[in-house]
């Protein structure tokens, strides 16, 4: 054994000698090289690496680290000696040095036992030498190693060891030490400690580092620290530790970890923060956290079951409805339910085919489809989250209500006993926008199922025409079985009587029995518990909730009977109703007589009004630079007027946005650039020549070109690469415009929305529409608004400006930051006015008050007018008070902001990329006009049939048109009453002209023509153009006049 040892040592020594010689050889070769210094340096670096790798490969890091250390020492020393001859231009030299230093340091940290004295001394001396050599040539890469070399062991620094043993020395000492070591080395140390499973030591070190002010913004110590404590500490400690950290920072850290490839760590951190938010019932950043959490979990968990399990655990922690909704959403998104993943793929493929079929500019249709899809997905999920948040309050209170009902049922106090026979009922007033209700009810029943009771049934009026149908639906939905109603259905009568046993009879007593067996089954798992505490455990008696989605549409008779029946069973069955009401709650009183409504214990819940809902949606969806896709003024106008004039439905509004989105990406080839900045810049580079030509033809781009120098104009119009560069710049400019536009819009709105008579509208959307239309500052209303603003009192103005500051605060663009600073400055000056004014009493006031005094004396109207005018004049001429000066300054500042940022998007170059402009298409699709299209079809059939033979000029109908068109055309020439026989003859003439038969039968009515005519006439009658009349025989009355 001892023999082998020495032999090994001998080998090592020899190898080191050999290495040293080879390096020597390289250095001399370098000195004598005839090549240029740069090439020689490159050559040297390459050779050097090769030799080093060759030699270092003989030992393994885990087994023989000491010889490796020797190798590194030799290598570094030799390199340092050679540095003076190397070219300073060569990039590889510092790179190589840094790599050498880093791997050497890593090796040192790895050294398991104490380094033998001789070796360490050699290392120390050679490092010192090398470092001094290198410093002469100005490179500091070896700092790291020289710091290490100054100590007498890798881990032996006293400060370090006391830190690691958790006895923190004095702050100055620690800081001195940290300053000495540098962030890189400390980071390596921490990573090493984590690798060696001494995570708590790593945590201590990381904490110290993160608290050191010198390292702020360096090295992510905070993140490492959190990760360490996530791995070691218990739940409570962890919560305490992370309590003070902002979720936004946490999100950033999670992203960092994920991009470093440490998915496990990211998940660890993410679940810690998510748990914190859940426990605190805080929704700040909760959606992002939930989303990240689910994505990370899905990557690490292969099976959907495990994912569901984790989600369930999370759901148990939830304290707020919103969190549960988020969880439900991610579970649905991850496709943990039934068949989704398999059919999804197929579907999108066919969708894509649809998209690229007949779409403008097919070459980049794939990219556009993807962009469109992504954008829509984002919009959709965002609006859903928004909806949930808006509904949160009402849903929360509803859930509370159901819980309270099910718990009071089991209490035995006097008051609730007296109420025992009443059915608890929630009247949920949702507003007239019925299409939106579905979503609300869906999330309501999801929530109920999730957190209150497994027994929820929702019914709609249209499926419950009679009592037995209502009964059947309720039973089916609660019991999940087929229920027979005794209808006279013969085919079922054949079924044998054995079948009859199984099928359930449609009555509430069946439901009672079923409920009893259900609850008994669940309570058998804890036998005896129910006996001793009959009221304590409410999960054993979950309420049966029946949701009537549209109360108004129900037949009152049916509803009354159903409630009467239910009240008979209320003692045995804990029933509960939820009424969805669209109009007003008094409908309950109209529908139910006293004898029935006295059986209910009604509580009212009012939901948010739909206009508020729309305002929020517009605020979050339209008025944000987050989505690159925009609507122009006319399209917005169409969508909003459909909402206000026709349906009040937010869902339809979002559908409209979806339609516009799809149309935009489908019809505009340049929409590839309508995406996030990075992608857009990339996509610009990949534009084909044809698309570049399209850009050149854009009106906004033409305008841009005209403003350029002649030489530049030529360049732009001929040179593709130049165009691409400019496009990138323009796209960035467009983005910046949006970034500034929305904050300024909001500021202007806050200033003007409280003015009397709302010159610029009450809602932001109105102002937005004005701004989209044209230069807002040219608008008359804007002038009046500004005039009104100039009359604001001080405290009002200050609060308004304060709110503007709040709006501008989170905006990250440079210009807005500058504006913010200016605004703040103005505010402080406003506030200072008080102190200044207190010191010097305003002398101007005296002058103003004197004419007012005069005014009180005079009563003559003419005189009054004159003085008023004079006052006005004099005031204008008068020296303004300091407040007025400042106010004017502030308003001028606002005005300048508006003028520089609120120009309409049409003035921006390349706006066609982002803005969808075709309002006619949207209107045609969303607000169809059946009557007009029927008339268009009848008067010019070519429009729909696209048959060449039907093409005519000047609006006349060709002979070959369908019979009904000819008949229609002829009837237009008649008066109020049409003689059928005349009509028939005219018709026959036209038709035979088309057939071009022999002149004998021209205009003659044969049987076929007669039949065709009759058919055409009856079709016209069906369409409502004529009707039969009794005023005159053989006449019909015409019903439409003029073009509609």
């Amino acid at each position: 054994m001892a023999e082998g040892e020495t032999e090994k040592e001998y080998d090592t020594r020899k190898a080191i000698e050999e290495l040293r010689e080879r390096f020597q050889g390289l250095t001399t070769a370098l000195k004598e090289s005839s090549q240029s210094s740069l090439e020689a340096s490159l050559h040297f670096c390459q050779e050097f690496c090769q030799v080093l790798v060759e030699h270092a490969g003989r030992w393994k890091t885990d087994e023989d680290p000491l010889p490796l250390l020797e190798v590194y020492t030799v290598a570094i020393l030799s390199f340092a000696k050679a540095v003076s001859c190397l070219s300073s231009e060569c990039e590889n030299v510092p790179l190589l040095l840094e790599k050498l230093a880093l791997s050497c340091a890593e090796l040192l940290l790895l050294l398991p036992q104490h380094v033998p004295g001789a070796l360490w001394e050699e290392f120390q001396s050679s490092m010192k030498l090398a470092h001094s050599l290198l410093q002469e040539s100005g490179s500091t890469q070896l700092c790291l190693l020289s710091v290490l070399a100054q100590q007498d062991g890798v881990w032996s620094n006293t400060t370090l060891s006391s830190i690691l043993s958790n006895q923190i020395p004095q702050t100055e000492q620690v800081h001195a030490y940290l300053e000495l070591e540098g962030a890189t080395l400390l980071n390596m140390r921490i990573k090493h400690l984590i690798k060696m499973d001494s995570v708590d030591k790593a945590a201590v070190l990381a904490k110290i580092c993160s608290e050191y002010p010198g390292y702020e913004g360096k090295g992510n110590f905070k993140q490492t620290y959190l990760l360490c404590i996530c791995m070691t500490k218990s739940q409570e400690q962890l919560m305490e530790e992370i309590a003070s950290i902002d979720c936004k920072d946490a999100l950033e850290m999670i992203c960092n970890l994920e991009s470093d490839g440490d998915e496990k760590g990211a998940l660890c951190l993410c679940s810690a923060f998510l748990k914190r938010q859940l426990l605190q019932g805080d929704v700040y950043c909760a959606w992002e956290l939930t989303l990240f959490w689910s994505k990370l979990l899905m990557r690490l968990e292969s099976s959907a079951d495990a994912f569901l399990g984790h989600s369930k655990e999370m759901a148990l922690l939830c304290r707020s409805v919103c969190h549960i909704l988020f969880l439900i959403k991610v579970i649905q998104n991850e496709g943990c339910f039934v068949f989704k993943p398999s059919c999804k793929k197929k579907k999108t493929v066919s969708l894509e085919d649809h998209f690229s079929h007949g779409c403008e500019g097919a070459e980049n249709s794939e990219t556009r489809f993807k962009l469109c899809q992504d954008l829509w997905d984002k919009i959709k999920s965002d609006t859903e989250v928004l909806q949930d948040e808006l509904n949160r309050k009402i849903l929360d209170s509803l859930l509370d209500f159901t819980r309270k009902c099910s718990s009071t049922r089991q209490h035995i106090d006097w008051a609730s006993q007296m109420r025992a026979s009443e059915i608890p009922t929630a009247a949920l007033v949702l507003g007239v926008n019925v299409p939106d209700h579905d979503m609300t009810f869906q999330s309501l029943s999801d929530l109920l199922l999730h957190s209150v009771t497994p027994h929820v049934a929702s019914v709609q009026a249209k499926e419950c025409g009679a009592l037995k149908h209502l009964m059947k639906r309720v039973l089916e939905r609660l019991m999940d079985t087929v229920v027979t109603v005794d209808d006279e259905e013969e085919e079922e009568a054949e079924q044998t009587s054995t079948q009859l046993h199984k099928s359930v009879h449609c009555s509430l007593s069946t439901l009672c029995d079923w409920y009893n067996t259900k609850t008994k089954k669940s309570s058998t798992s804890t036998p005896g518990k129910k006996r001793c505490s009959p009221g304590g455990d409410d999960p054993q008696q979950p309420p049966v909730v029946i949701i009537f989605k549209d109360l108004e549409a129900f037949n009152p008779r049916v509803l009354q009977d159903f409630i009467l029946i239910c009240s008979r069973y209320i003692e045995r069955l804990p029933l509960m109703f939820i009424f969805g009401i669209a109009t007003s709650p008094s409908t309950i009183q109209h529908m139910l007589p006293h004898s029935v409504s006295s059986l209910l214990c009604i509580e009212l819940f009012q939901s948010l009004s739909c206009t508020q809902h729309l305002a929020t949606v517009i605020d979050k969806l339209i008025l944000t630079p987050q989505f690159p896709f925009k609507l122009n003024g006319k399209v917005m106008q169409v969508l909003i007027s459909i909402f206000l004039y026709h349906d009040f439905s937010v869902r339809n509004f979002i559908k409209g946005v979806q339609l516009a989105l799809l149309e935009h990406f489908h019809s505009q080839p340049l929409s590839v650039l309508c995406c996030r900045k990075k992608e857009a810049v990339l996509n610009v580079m990949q534009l084909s020549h044809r698309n570049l030509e399209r850009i050149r033809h854009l009106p906004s781009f033409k305008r841009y070109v005209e403003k350029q120098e002649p030489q530049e104009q030529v360049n732009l119009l001929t040179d593709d690469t130049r165009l691409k560069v400019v496009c990138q710049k323009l796209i960035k400019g467009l983005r910046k415009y949006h970034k500034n536009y929305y904050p300024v819009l909001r500021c202007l709105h806050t200033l003007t929305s409280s003015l009397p008579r709302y010159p610029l509208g009450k809602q932001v959307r109105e102002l937005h529409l004005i701004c989209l239309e044209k230069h807002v500052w040219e608008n008359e209303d804007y002038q009046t608004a500004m005039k009104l603003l100039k009359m604001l009192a001080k405290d009002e103005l200050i609060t308004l400006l304060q709110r503007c500051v709040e709006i501008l605060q989170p905006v990250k663009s440079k210009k807005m930051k500058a504006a913010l600073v200016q605004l703040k400055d103005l505010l402080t000056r406003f506030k200072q006015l008080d102190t200044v004014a207190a010191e010097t009493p305003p002398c101007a006031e005296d002058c103003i008050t004197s004419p007012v005094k005069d005014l009180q004396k005079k009563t003559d109207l003419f005189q009054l007018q004159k003085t008023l005018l004079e006052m006005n004049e004099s005031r204008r001429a008068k020296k303004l008070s300091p407040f007025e000066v400042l106010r004017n300054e502030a308003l001028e500042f606002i005005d300048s902001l508006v003028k520089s940022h609120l120009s309409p998007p049409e003035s921006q170059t390349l706006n066609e990329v982002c803005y969808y402009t075709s309002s006619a298409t949207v209107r045609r699709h969303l607000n169809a006009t059946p009557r007009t299209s029927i008339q268009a079809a009848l008067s010019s059939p070519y429009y729909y049939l696209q048959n060449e033979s039907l093409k005519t000029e000047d609006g006349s109908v060709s002979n070959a048109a369908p019979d009904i068109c000819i008949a229609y055309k002829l009837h237009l020439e008649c008066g109020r009453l049409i003689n059928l026989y005349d009509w028939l003859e005219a018709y026959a003439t036209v038709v035979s002209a088309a057939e071009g038969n022999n002149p004998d039968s021209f205009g003659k009515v044969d049987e076929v023509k007669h039949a065709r005519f009759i058919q055409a006439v009856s079709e016209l009658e069906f369409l409502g153009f004529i009707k039969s009349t009794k005023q005159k025989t053989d006449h019909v009355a015409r019903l439409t006049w003029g073009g509609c």
Partner: protein
Amino acid sequence: MTSLLRQPGYEEERLQRVAELLPCREVQAGLLLSLMGKPQQYSYPSVFIYGHQASGKSHVIHVLLKELELPHATVSCVECVSVALLFEQVLLSFFGCDAASLLPRSPSLSDFVRIYRQQRSQSPAKQTRYIVMEKAELLRDTDANLLPALLRLQELVEDNVTVILLSEIVWDKFRPNTGCFEPLLLHFPDYSKGELQQILSQDRHPSYSAEFYASYINILLGVFYSVCRDLRELRHLAALNFSKFCEPLAEGKVKETDTHKLWRNIEPHLKKAMQTVYLREVSSLQWEQMQQMEEKESGALRGLSAHTHVELPYYSKFLLIAAYLASYNPARTDKRFFLKHHGKIRKTNFLKKNEKTSNHLLGPKPFPLDRLLAIFYSVVDSRVAPTASIFSQLLTKVSHDDQLDAPKYKCAVSMDFICAISRTVSFDIVKYLYDFL
């Protein structure tokens, strides 16, 4: 008292208990008992009991049959959407589920009788069987033969069975044209004030003495008896206001015996409750919250009828206005109201006396769709394209199985409502109404 409920064949103890459970209905219960005779004796084939809501009909029957453990089947006619359910429930409670399953699909009356007889022969009645039909007035709407058959079911099935019908309507309204077996009529009169007092005092709060609760009921009846004699409503009111009544006691301000002070305390609250008798505007839970919040004068909680405001889209409002006008104006006056150059219509001719007074009293009249649309287009000030959105709003209203060709409508909203709506769109509806010309 108990002497009334004396009937051979029943245990004395049970009769005692029945008497306790049926305060103020001893006479009726005694009469019923004597009608029923001994358990095994045949009784009168059918008994018809009528009386107002909450006069104890179901309660008396239920207690009697339950406490004396007589075989019976209680059926609510509301629940029996088909006769099959009725038959099934009867058979189920008399002979068990085997018998009930023998019924064919959609059974007829004769099926029922056949199976009943078959079962009866297997397990003949040792005691009189009772079939109780609640809300019997609904039987009038079922098959014509059902009611007469039930009345003489005893004969049909040849069994010791008695049918008891409970209803709020007098028998005269039941009697079919074809004539039938006359049941025995029994009237349950309304409770008197004293009786109400006695009954209501029974459900006293466990933590207060019976006298105290009785005095509370006395005060309550003093206020409400003049407007409301319904036992159920009174009980509801009693439960609602009791906590308020007890408040000074809980605060230790007065003693239980100090009736006068208690009265002074509760009076304003009872007066307030008086306004909402029968309305059930808010749930009992919310009422309690309201009582607590009263001091703060918070108007957050309002009754159901307080929320009459309805948000509607712009054109929907005009559609509603058009519908209202079409409902309340005679069609011949449309020309006068909606045509710019309607020419001269003589006033005397135009205003017919009898028509003028009546329209709003008579209620809405039906009108066809095209008249509605014509008025709509002339009422809306801007030019509206006849778009699908407007049509679809109308189409959802056509849910009746009327003739599809020319459906007719009525406008069901009230005058106040339409005035409020037209005010929001600044449309002076009164100018367009014939009645107010």
